């Protein structure tokens, strides 16, 4: 959104967001680190390094689980969209918590020998051919590297530089990370512990994450955006003009798989790409605020007629030629170059 990049963009909502996030993480860590030792009636206490490693590891797992719930929840219920808004801060914090877990483990289980701790991490346990006793640290490492790539490429610069589709493909690593974390836990601590409280929490969290994703996918398939029907001259039918409410859009999937969003503003229709220039958020699920289409994800705005962000912003998105015939909205599926002005088509209220 910014004309010039800044390290971190802040606003009041992000402060609120981070307040709750930090409160949860601080509450978790405080009770785990400082209160739980008093509850444990062990003759000899657990080593602080192991205790800390467990605290940060369990915290990272739960944070990752919450993060992975946000996407599908926002698809199923739009009220959760604000949780998506500042998800990157949540992700960066998770990466730091996971890194702390790694640090405690590395400096304890893999330190104090004659070899470097990075080498011992690799050669200490090489029982790759078995399930019980498998070097589950390897899965933790895959997850950590994935989380670090996600966290370090979360600045908006990367979105613009790599383009949203490439960036998004990289950020699918979140699924790799979660799968690896699940394997890391299943073959690690779950093999070991006798008290099954964490096992139960792990199972509920993982089950919630995978069910929400599957449900959101099925929901999207059932009530996702309809396909545009082909019409004459290569144009396609999107919907009936009367179906589009004022300041909102109808989305249709074009034959090439792209999506067009047809907006109504002051009873005139305009067609733009459904993909926001920022993170390819679904513009058609957004709303026109003060004459500007506003993305539901991060609030990027565009003039609906030209697909251009208002000055001083410079984002541009493709527009589509549009026509209305017998109340049916037609668009030319060949997108105009980003930022091309198209005269809106007047329709009755």
């Amino acid at each position, binding site marked *: 959104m*910014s*004309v*010039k*990049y800044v*390290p971190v963009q802040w606003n009041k909502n992000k402060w609120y967001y981070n307040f709750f996030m930090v409160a949860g993480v601080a509450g978790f860590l405080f009770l785990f680190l400082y209160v739980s030792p008093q509850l444990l009636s062990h003759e000899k206490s657990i080593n602080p390094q192991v205790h800390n490693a467990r605290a940060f590891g369990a915290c990272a797992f739960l944070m990752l689980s919450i993060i992975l719930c946000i996407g599908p929840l926002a698809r199923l219920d739009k009220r959760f969209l604000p949780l998506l808004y500042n998800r990157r801060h949540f992700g960066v914090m998770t990466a730091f918590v996971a890194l702390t877990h790694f640090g405690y483990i590395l400096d304890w289980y893999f330190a104090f020998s004659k070899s*470097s701790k*990075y*080498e*011992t991490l*690799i*050669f200490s346990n090489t029982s790759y051919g078995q*399930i*019980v006793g498998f070097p589950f640290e390897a899965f933790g490492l895959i997850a950590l*590297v994935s989380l*670090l*790539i996600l966290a*370090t*490429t979360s*600045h908006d*610069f*990367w979105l*613009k*530089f*790599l*383009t*949203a*589709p*490439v960036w*998004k*493909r*990289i950020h*699918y690593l979140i*699924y790799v990370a*979660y*799968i690896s974390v*699940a*394997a890391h836990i*299943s073959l690690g601590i*779950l*093999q070991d512990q006798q008290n099954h409280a964490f096992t139960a929490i792990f*199972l509920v969290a*993982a089950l919630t*994450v*995978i069910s929400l*994703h*599957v449900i*959101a*996918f099925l929901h*999207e*398939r059932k009530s996702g955006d309809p396909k545009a029907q082909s019409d004459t001259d290569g144009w396609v039918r999107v919907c009936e003009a009367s179906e589009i409410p004022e300041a909102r859009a109808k989305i249709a999937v074009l034959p090439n*798989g*792209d999506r067009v969003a047809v907006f109504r503003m002051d009873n005139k229709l305009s067609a733009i790409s459904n*993909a926001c*220039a920022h993170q*390819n958020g679904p513009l058609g699920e957004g709303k026109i605020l003060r004459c500007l289409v506003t993305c539901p994800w991060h609030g990027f705005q565009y003039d609906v007629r030209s697909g251009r962000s208002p000055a001083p912003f*410079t984002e541009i998105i*493709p527009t589509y030629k549009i026509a209305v015939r017998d109340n049916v909205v037609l668009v030319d599926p060949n*997108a105009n*170059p*980003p930022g091309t002005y198209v005269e809106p088509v007047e329709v009755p209220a």
Partner: protein
Amino acid sequence: MNTAEALVDFVRIWFMIGGVVAAFFLVIGIDRIDEDARGAYVFRPLIVPGILLIWPLVLWRWWVLETGRDNPDARFHPVRSAHGVAAFSMAIIITVTVIIGLSNRQEWPADFEPVRLSAPEGTSQ
């Protein structure tokens, strides 16, 4: 242990190349290919860790943008269809992993009595 040394060296070299790429990219490249970065310097250190990790991708994009090969339309093709694959892969792999993990879990064989198979040589039981 030589494999471990080689792997650690590989990572070290990876980061060293990343450092060189970061230096060149943040001093020279970024201003050439992104107008939003011109005159913005404070955010640049934040970009360094990312370059260290994925520098080959940085070099590729730099080259694409520098040589005018960038296809501006490519920005508007979201990868939404991949979610289904990701969701189901995640669901299946995690379920299988957890089942394999928990079903192979060992319990401490607390009831096992040590068995003396034979007496020491030269003695009788």
